[in-house]
């Protein structure tokens, strides 16, 4: 268990012991209570073990099978298969969905990660679509309150440079944004100081400053 947040304006997720997730029958169960605060937390499991199910449960678009949990903060759940209309451009998506004050930031960031904002969404590559979706979520974060971003495999299709840029953003906003990121890391040295792991129908929390993917992947069955 991680040390709890004390400031109510900071984001937090409280997962009670006995929380069970799944579609009718339980996919995974939390044996111990877990409290997550601001920062990036990785959600690790093999395919079909319940990563998306946990994210959807926390996003309250799916009911837990049993148990309770609590969330503090403005929540956004970014589904892996989120997509916009094929004819609309990323620039239009940003204009329609982001606050005016953040529009220029979005366009600047898009330029930095080489996202062509004038190209129709339907003609963008998988990685560029993912960049568009991530930009919408990241720039919809409310600066004056706690935020929770539930990101389902945001890295798939993303190039290493863009991924690094987003990781820098995550690091800079770790105080008021809690990110729970499901992913399948592709390099062993990736640091994962805070991770939720689902294996053998059990969900547990693992933390440690020197914790890396190479250590954690041996625990996945």
């Amino acid at each position, binding site marked *: 268990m991680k040390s709890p947040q004390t400031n109510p304006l900071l984001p937090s997720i409280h997962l009670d012991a006995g929380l069970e997730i799944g579609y009718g029958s339980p996919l995974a169960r939390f044996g111990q209570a877990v409290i997550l605060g601001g920062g990036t937390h990785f959600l690790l499991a093999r395919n079909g073990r319940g990563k998306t199910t946990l994210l959807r449960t926390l996003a309250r678009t799916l009911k837990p099978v049993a148990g309770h949990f609590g969330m503090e903060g403005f*929540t956004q759940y970014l*589904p892996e*298969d989120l997509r*916009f*209309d094929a004819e609309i451009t990323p620039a239009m998506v940003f204009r329609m*969905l982001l606050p005016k004050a953040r529009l220029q930031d979005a366009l600047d960031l898009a330029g930095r990660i080489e996202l062509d904002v004038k190209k129709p969404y339907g003609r963008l590559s998988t990685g560029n679509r993912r960049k568009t979706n991530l930009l919408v979520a990241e720039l919809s974060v409310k600066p004056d309150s706690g935020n929770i971003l539930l990101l389902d495999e945001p890295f798939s299709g993303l190039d290493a440079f863009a991924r690094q840029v987003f990781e820098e953003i995550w690091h800079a906003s770790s105080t008021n944004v809690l990110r729970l990121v499901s992913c399948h890391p592709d390099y062993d040295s990736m640091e994962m100081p805070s991770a939720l792991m689902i294996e053998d129908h059990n969900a547990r929390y693992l933390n440690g400053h020197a914790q890396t993917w190479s250590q954690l992947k041996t625990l996945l069955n």
Partner: protein
Amino acid sequence: MRLFRLTLATIFQRKAWVICVLAVVVLPFALPLLSSATEKPLLVQPARILASWDTLWICAVIWGLFTAAREGEANAQSGRGEYFLTTGISATRQLFEIWLAVFCFLAVLTSLTALICQFAAAPADPVERTMWWVLNTQYVVLFLLVISPLLALATALASRFGGITGFAVTLGITLYGLYGVGYLDNLLKLEHHPMLHSLWLFSPQYRFADLTQRLYFKSGALPASAFWTMTLYFVGILAVYTGLSRLCFRTKLSS
């Protein structure tokens, strides 16, 4: 209103609305030139009335319902509905915002039709002319009252059963309400049938909202009492369809 703005931009970007605007603006002037009205100038204005309102009905029933259904289906299947739901935009609100975006385009088309009818097909007689704008306004109100709940129903059905179902069912209801009920009415006048009579009682009588013939024959504005009775009747249908739409609407695919 993020979803409203996104839906509005999406429909705008697809540009199919341009065809509807062109049809609504051009056909009332072009079609009378192809008809016998060219030989009898007296028939030009009635032909223009027919062309303008019939074009609007066709655009609303085909493009409007199709667009509403497509947006409802896309919202549920693309993950957008689920995303917006987690940001605090409830299912009811999502349905309203999608409906409003489609309605905005139809409201513009309706206004264009009414303006053409008012300024390019008004009768010369001053008495008839004074009633013209009243009848036009009545028609606009009744038309929008009929089409609005159908848009919501198309969106909601499409979100649950797919775009084709959403479009086909609402198209069927509209055509039945405009024409089928009339045939049923005639049938019942010839022979009483309790089952058909019950069906007729619960059928949406959209034909009453079609005031094209009233404009065509210059019959004057609807009496206030008749207009308010019809308004109440269509508001009732709107309430029923709104409830049904909310029950049917969903923001994501089933788990």
